[in-house]
């Protein structure tokens, strides 16, 4: 194992932000850490990146405790913070030079590293522009670039796509994938977007309220829902009585509604069509559609916590 997270815990004054988290990451894997805001992802990542001292447990990098020897491990980590941790008044190149130099990279080596990184993040043409003038996506790319300068073995990314347009997001996802495939880089990818994690990651840890509530490959996670099906109902107008009727049905496990869409989790054998049309008639609700969806991680999260992943 490249990285072993063992019973990692963090207690702030009033919050138990992380509870006994266990994670194992192998060389070359892309690992996803999925969870809603406040789940404890950033706190976990800060501990793994040696920035925050755990109140319990430890993290082992190649078998060595990061608490005992944070200095040598930092060289091997590339950390992409959740914030745009850059000097906005400096150009892309000046940022890379600054962080490269304080990383101890010098002269020709630094020059070639900066060239390579700029190519990787697609900012070679914009190297002389101050970061302030960059789009959100470009800033995020440079934020990743800085973490790549010292050729880390593992790159740890904390929500690297927050607040940017879909195109920029795709660019970043592709970059992460290329880094993994072409450079063999191990990736720990944190997000509250399940599509990203689903698309990118070999294995996923789902976190909620400080705990890992499920882990495994995409398929393994969805198998949690194997005995169940997720039904999406669209209505013309949503009556509370219709929702009440669904909730009253003890066979239905979870009911979640948003606008004119209602999602329920039902056992595989549940005669859903007959039942739901029945409830609709009783409550004078006109149905637009009723469909059984392939389960998503969203559904897995809903199943496990009773809450939607996104707030």
């Amino acid at each position, binding site marked *: 194992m490249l990285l072993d997270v063992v019973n990692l815990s963090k207690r702030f004054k009033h919050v138990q932000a992380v509870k006994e988290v266990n994670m194992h990451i192998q060389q070359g894997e892309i690992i996803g850490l999925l969870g809603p805001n406040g789940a404890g992802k950033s706190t976990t990542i800060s501990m793994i990146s040696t920035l*925050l001292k755990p109140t319990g447990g430890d993290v082992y990098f190649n078998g060595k405790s990061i608490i005992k020897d944070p200095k040598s491990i930092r*060289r091997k980590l590339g950390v992409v913070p959740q*914030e745009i941790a*850059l000097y906005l008044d*400096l150009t892309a190149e000046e940022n890379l030079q*600054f962080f490269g130099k*304080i990383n101890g990279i010098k002269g020709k080596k630094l020059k070639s590293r900066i060239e390579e990184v700029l190519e990787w993040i697609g900012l070679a043409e914009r190297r002389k522009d101050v970061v302030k003038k960059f789009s959100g996506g470009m800033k995020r790319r440079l934020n990743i670039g800085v973490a790549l300068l010292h050729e880390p073995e593992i790159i740890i990314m904390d929500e690297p796509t927050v607040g940017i347009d879909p195109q920029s997001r795709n660019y970043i996802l592709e970059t992460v994938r290329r880094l993994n495939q072409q450079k063999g880089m191990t990736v720990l990818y944190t997000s509250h977007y399940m599509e990203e994690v689903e698309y990118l990651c070999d294995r996923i840890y789902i976190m909620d309220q400080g705990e890992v509530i499920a882990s495994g490959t995409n398929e393994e996670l969805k198998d949690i829902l194997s005995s169940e099906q997720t039904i999406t109902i669209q209505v013309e107008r949503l009556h509370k009585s219709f929702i009440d009727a669904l909730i009253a049905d003890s066979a239905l496990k979870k009911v979640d509604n948003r606008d004119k869409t209602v999602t329920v989790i039902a056992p595989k054998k549940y005669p859903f069509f007959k039942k739901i049309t029945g409830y609709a008639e009783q409550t004078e609700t006109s149905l637009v559609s009723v469909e059984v969806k392939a389960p998503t991680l969203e559904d897995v999260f809903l199943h496990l916590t009773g809450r939607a992943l996104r707030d």
Partner: protein
Amino acid sequence: MIGQFIKKDLLMLIRNRNELLILLLMPLVLISILGFALGGFISGGNSTFHAKVAIVDYGNEQRDMEIFKEQLQSLPLASEAKNEIAEGLENFRPIRILIDEMFGSEELKQIIQLEQVSPEQVDRIKKEDEYSAIIEIPEKFTYHVFTSAFLGEKNEKAKLLLYKNEGRQISSQIVEEVLEQFQRQLSNVTVIGKSGIDPEAVVETVSGSIETVLKRKPINSIAYYTVGMNVFFIMFVASTISSFAYREKRLQVFNRILLTNVSRWFYFFGIVFSTIFIALLQQIILYGISTIVFQVRWENVLAFLVINMTLSFAIGGFSALLTSMNFRLDSENASNVFNSIIVTLFALLGGSFLPISSFSPMLNLIGNLTPNGAGMTALLKLLQGYEWGDIYIYVVYLLVIGFVLLAVAVMLFPKRRAEI
């Protein structure tokens, strides 16, 4: 590697027009406005030197004069001569001349404030430190002056008494010289018919010696405000750099720096060095421009640099303290309060706007306790031609301020308790 930290702070400043305006343009504009508007000379003495002198009169000039007149009538002199003397008497009031024309002259008034006190107050005043000297006019002083001047009777009693405050050597020395000159002139007024003394001549001779005592050159208002504004605006370097540092923390740049194995203390002292360097650079640019544009010249360049380096060091201390407070409070408030309130207050007390230290010894003391005030006093003294011996104390004080601020900042800077 410290160079990298200084370089990025410099780059950020250069790219920030607002910061540049505040750090470089504003002081130059204010120097021109204040310097030319208030024009002429602000006596250097005002801001750097000020003495209070008490005068107490045990006699009665009017009565002395009457007694002398009576005596004159009974003298065996030609009535023509008597008339001439009587006429001379009308214009010859030694005490008035001393108080109004000598101590009242522009030159002396600016450095010595003469206060008439009653005999009852003398004992109390002697115990206090506030006065540099006490001049006592003995009983029948005027009478004795008259007899010696008009009748040629050399009289030891025609002498003023002076109590000097040993703690205030320079000012009491000036007073002593004034009295000596005054006394010498009085004793020269002997020839009947050439009565009267020339107060202007006294003041002139004395002001020559004031200059030698103070080794003072006059300071014009341009020079005064060049120093005043520069020590004012140097303080903004502390708030600017500490704000930069806080933004580094908020945007996790600080974390990113720690991840390169740069220690938090290296980072901390990077801020201090960066502030010192940028403050010094700012001062050199500002003084450079004022030398060319306003002709404010520094003869003792070495002392000039030493004062500015220590002032910059004290500013580095402020920068460190503000950074620690910002990090601790997790906000930019400390820097903001400093640059919106404290800097202006310090500038006011330190005398950047007006030589307020001349208003009272208390204000003078408070002013010199502010780092900018201490720096300003030192630089003005240097400009006036004082020697190092009169200046180094401010340099020492600035170093002390810097070290104390640094020590407090180190104690306040969040330790790695929560971090690995």
